[in-house]
């Protein structure tokens, strides 16, 4: 007993020990925790730290969670991690944690997350340098999931054991330098090591492959013989072999002397007393310190950057110019060693160069060479430097070459149409544009290519109406060229789809990279999730104030299906109530809420609407729940004018669960999920049957939903799912509920024989179905009911009833089917179609036409479609 007590007490003390010496814990809800890829939140399994944990399906290693600690002082640290365990295969037995110190990988440790939850488990002890510690868990493990919960560090000892990195500083040149081919630059450096691990070694890499690396601390003069811009890098390594993690660099630009013709011109100098010199804030005049240009100089105390002196040059012709500045130097701290000069050409910042004003007075010191456009050059010195003063004296420019390389490209914008457009063969589209050129090289020339070889190119800025006589999808391209012959490198494009009249295959898609797409607010471009259309997608954090919009030109009024697509990852963070506003010619015709946490990766039907010619705008806002809203692509499909429009509502049997017969996916049906969904169901088959039988085009929209009851089906008719308002052009509804009402757990009473005034009526199958019929009728549509198929068991899979007719579920279904007859018989329900008896149909066929205990297979869905077809065409 005493032994047990002692062991427990020691164990408890050990448990407390880390806390006694300063444990730091970052939980998955803390600021130091970040994720890349989808990591879902959960608190289902106990053993986690804090309020919850994150988990990710095992994968390629592309997903990772990172705990980042600030290591204030070097020392030896113990690192440990906690998780919420579960048995295999629900947890990885080799979850990989990688330990990084200041970006250097120290170790990767795999941990078995199937066990040892509720505690911090050691990842090892490491000598860490001051800076950052990152513990990174990646998803490349076995089994199903890795869990990211919390990481703890405990400092065991300080100093000593950890080697700190050396540092190298380039003393010469002090900043970017521009020379001509054949000239030299003097290189010198200083190295240091915080823990004195000398001697240090040096490695200079000069960027030009023709120049050998140097291992001298001060290589001295190095000659560059090839034109180009080189990044010279100095890496210092200590005696223990640890290299400076941030090597010093300096840029060297080497120009061909007089390249581009003409050679160098005479310099133009603006002194601080000249007209081109202006000041903002107080800059005092002085001539106390020699080395200045002209009669004096100006100086200002170092500050926030609010004071600046500007030298403004008129650049008469484009070309390459060398810019240099002079000052009156003084030793530190009386001069800044990092006086910032910014170079602007026609208002565009080209570079900011810092110069050391403690030295090199009495001469013009290079600020670099730049390709400048004609217009203005401003050299601006600001006061946000170190030390006491910055000096504004004189700036000099020298033209090295003229013309050529500095011409900026023009830009062309298609004003009409404003987005992708769909027309019928023989119809026209009006084209108009606007061209511009940043350096005014006019007149501009225009070239329209219409994609259809039968249509001649146009060189008009506004070609006007262009008629397309051949069906197809064309990319119309506008290229604008300036007076110097430089063309817009990114010609504007717009898509034109031309259909045969009466075709029901009119499809126009606007992706987030197309001209018809625009955003307001910040929407991040990404391709990290899967299931997007085109090359990438956009997303925005929820919160409101941001809009993504897709614009279409509706050349022909009529009935259109409208679809949206989003990604199929990040299902826990993608908004379940993303709001799409649909506007036709600026008038809001619908607001559709879609759940982006499911059904990603294909085009989901937003709704079908009658549209007038003009514009269609689909606007997605970020006013939703969850973390992010996805803006990917939208699509419109023009329906034939004589379309016969049905909506199928129901549970998984309407959805098509169990239909693995790929041949059902080939029709031009009206399912709201594309072939990518891999589902079939009876809808496409019935669509074909009705179309063939009547000679009229049909569409049957699939609004089935897995696992729902009649009560939930009733709710889905109204917002937020809002089926009724998303199908305003529907004529008939195919209704099939009841399979889930009849589950033996809390079954729904049938309501057989009851009327609304009966006390046992409310909430029954009959009540729910009557309300569904009423809602459909209230929109002027007709409801068609079907009797529920037989159930072979209590759930889809598992054991079957010895006698399916007498199974708990089927007994109730039989009552529901009596109710179907009762509802059909009520004149006010306006049900003209005799409900197909799916119970008796499948009762004699389930052995060959059922996928499982409750769902038809491909053959069964064919039979189900036949039953609907026979009933409708009676």
């Amino acid at each position, binding site marked *: 007993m005493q032994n047990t007590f002692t062991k*427990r007490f020691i*164990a408890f003390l050990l448990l407390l020990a880390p806390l006694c010496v300063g444990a730091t814990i970052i939980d998955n809800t803390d600021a130091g925790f970040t994720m890349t890829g989808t990591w879902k939140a959960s608190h*289902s399994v*106990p053993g986690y730290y804090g309020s919850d944990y994150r988990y990710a399906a095992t994968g390629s290693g592309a997903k990772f969670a990172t705990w980042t600690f600030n290591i204030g002082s070097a020392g030896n640290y113990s690192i440990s991690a906690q998780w919420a365990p579960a048995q295999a295969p629900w947890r990885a037995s080799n979850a990989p944690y990688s330990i990084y110190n200041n970006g250097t990988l120290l170790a990767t440790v795999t941990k078995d997350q199937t066990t040892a939850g509720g505690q911090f488990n050691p990842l090892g002890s490491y000598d860490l340098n001051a800076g950052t510690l990152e513990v990174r868990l990646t998803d490349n493990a076995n089994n199903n999931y890795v869990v990211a919960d919390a990481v703890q560090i405990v400092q065991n000892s300080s100093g000593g054991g950890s080697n700190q990195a050396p540092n190298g500083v380039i003393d010469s040149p002090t900043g970017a330098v521009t020379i001509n081919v054949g000239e030299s630059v003097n290189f010198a450096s200083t190295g240091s090591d915080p823990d004195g691990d000398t001697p240090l070694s040096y490695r200079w890499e000069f960027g030009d492959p023709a120049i050998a690396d140097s291992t001298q601390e001060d290589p001295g003069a190095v000659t560059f013989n090839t034109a180009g811009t080189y990044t010279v890098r100095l890496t210092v390594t200590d005696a223990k072999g640890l290299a400076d993690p941030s090597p010093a660099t300096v840029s060297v630009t080497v120009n061909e002397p007089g390249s581009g013709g003409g050679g160098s011109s005479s310099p133009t100098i603006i002194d601080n007393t000249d007209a081109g010199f202006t000041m903002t804030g107080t800059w005092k005049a002085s001539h106390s310190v020699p080395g200045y240009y002209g009669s004096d100089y100006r100086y200002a105390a170092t500050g926030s950057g609010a004071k600046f002196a500007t030298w403004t040059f008129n650049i008469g012709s484009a070309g390459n110019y060398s810019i240099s500045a002079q000052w009156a130097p003084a030793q530190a701290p009386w001069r800044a060693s990092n006086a910032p000069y910014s170079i602007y050409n026609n208002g565009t910042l080209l570079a900011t160069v810092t110069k050391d004003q403690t030295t090199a007075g009495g001469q013009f010191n290079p600020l670099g060479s730049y390709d400048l456009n004609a217009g203005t050059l401003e050299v601006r010195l600001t006061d946000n430097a170190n030390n006491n003063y910055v000096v504004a004296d004189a700036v000099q420019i020298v033209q090295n070459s003229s013309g050529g390389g500095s011409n900026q490209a023009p830009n062309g914008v298609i004003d009409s149409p404003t987005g992708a457009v769909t027309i019928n063969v023989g119809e026209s589209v009006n084209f108009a544009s606007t061209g511009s050129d940043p350096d005014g090289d006019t007149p501009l020339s225009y070239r329209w290519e219409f994609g259809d070889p039968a249509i001649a190119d146009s060189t008009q800025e506004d070609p006007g109406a262009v008629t397309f006589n051949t069906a197809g999808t064309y990319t119309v391209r506008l290229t604008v060229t300036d007076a110097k012959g430089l063309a817009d490198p990114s010609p504007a494009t717009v898509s034109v789809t031309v259909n045969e009249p009466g075709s029901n295959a009119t499809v126009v898609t606007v992706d987030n990279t197309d001209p018809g797409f625009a955003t307001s607010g910040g929407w991040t471009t990404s391709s990290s999730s899967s299931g997007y259309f085109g090359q990438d997608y956009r997303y925005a954090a929820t919160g409101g104030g941001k809009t993504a919009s897709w614009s279409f030109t509706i050349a022909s009024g009529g009935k259109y299906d409208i679809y949206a697509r989003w990604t199929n990852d990040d299902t826990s963070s993608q908004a379940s109530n993303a709001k799409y506003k649909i506007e036709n010619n600026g008038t809001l015709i619908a607001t559709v809420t879609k759940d982006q946490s499911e059904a990603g990766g294909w085009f989901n039907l937003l709704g079908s609407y009658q549209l007038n010619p003009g514009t269609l705008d689909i606007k997605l806002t970020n006013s939703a729940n969850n973390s992010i809203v996805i803006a990917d692509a939208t699509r419109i499909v023009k329906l034939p004018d004589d379309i016969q429009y049905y909506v199928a509502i129901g549970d998984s049997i309407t959805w098509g669960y169990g239909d693995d017969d790929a041949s059902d996916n080939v029709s031009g049906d009206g399912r709201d999920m594309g072939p990518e969904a891999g589902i079939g169901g009876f809808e496409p088959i019935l669509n074909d049957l009705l179309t063939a039988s009547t000679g009229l085009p049909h569409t049957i929209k699939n609004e089935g939903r897995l696992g729902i009851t009649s009560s939930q089906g009733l709710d889905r008719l109204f917002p937020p799912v809002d089926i009724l308002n998303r199908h305003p052009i529907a004529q008939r509804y195919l209704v099939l509920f009841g399979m889930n009402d009849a589950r033996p757990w809390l079954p729904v*009473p049938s309501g057989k024989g009851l009327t609304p005034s009966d006390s*046992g*009526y409310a909430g029954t199958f009959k009540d729910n179905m009557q309300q569904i019929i009423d809602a459909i009728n209230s929109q002027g549509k007709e409801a068609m009911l079907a009797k529920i198929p037989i159930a072979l068991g209590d*759930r889809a899979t598992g*054991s079957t009833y010895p006698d399916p007719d007498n199974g708990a*579920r089927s007994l109730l279904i039989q009552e529901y089917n009596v109710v179907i007859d009762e509802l059909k018989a009520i004149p006010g329900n306006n049900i003209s179609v005799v409900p197909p008896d799916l119970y008796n149909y499948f009762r004699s066929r389930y052995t060959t036409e059922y996928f499982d205990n409750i769902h038809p297979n491909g053959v069964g869905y064919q039979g189900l479609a036949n039953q609907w077809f026979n009933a409708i065409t009676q």
Partner: protein
Amino acid sequence: MRRILTIMSALMAVLSASIAWSADTPMGDSGRLERARSATFAPLFQAMKQGDIETIKQYLRGDTYEQYRTLFEHNKKYGEFLRSYYAGATFRLHDISARADNTYVANISIEWGDGRKARFDLEVSPPKGGLDHKWMVGNPTQ
């Protein structure tokens, strides 16, 4: 010395409780199953058989309650319907297991006096206050 012993005893009690909790596994533990049975399923099964709507309500998840709101709040005969439907039936909780998405299902069977049997999985949410508190019950799985 007495004070030290008192403190050590208190610490040991805390430690014992900690060890007992960490020994729990999320599934398949018979003690855990028994505690779920006594805290949740036995009284829920009893309420189902008796048509005790007020008690049943206390064990349902919010989304499931919404699905049954009309029946619970406006159908005065739903309790009577349940008593009739489950007359002579025996309920059993066989297991609680975790699924791939970290949700849980309880495997339930119902056996009627005439020999009819039903067996299915029920979505359940673990108790937030410890194993002796209520599991919240959702819908049967497909």
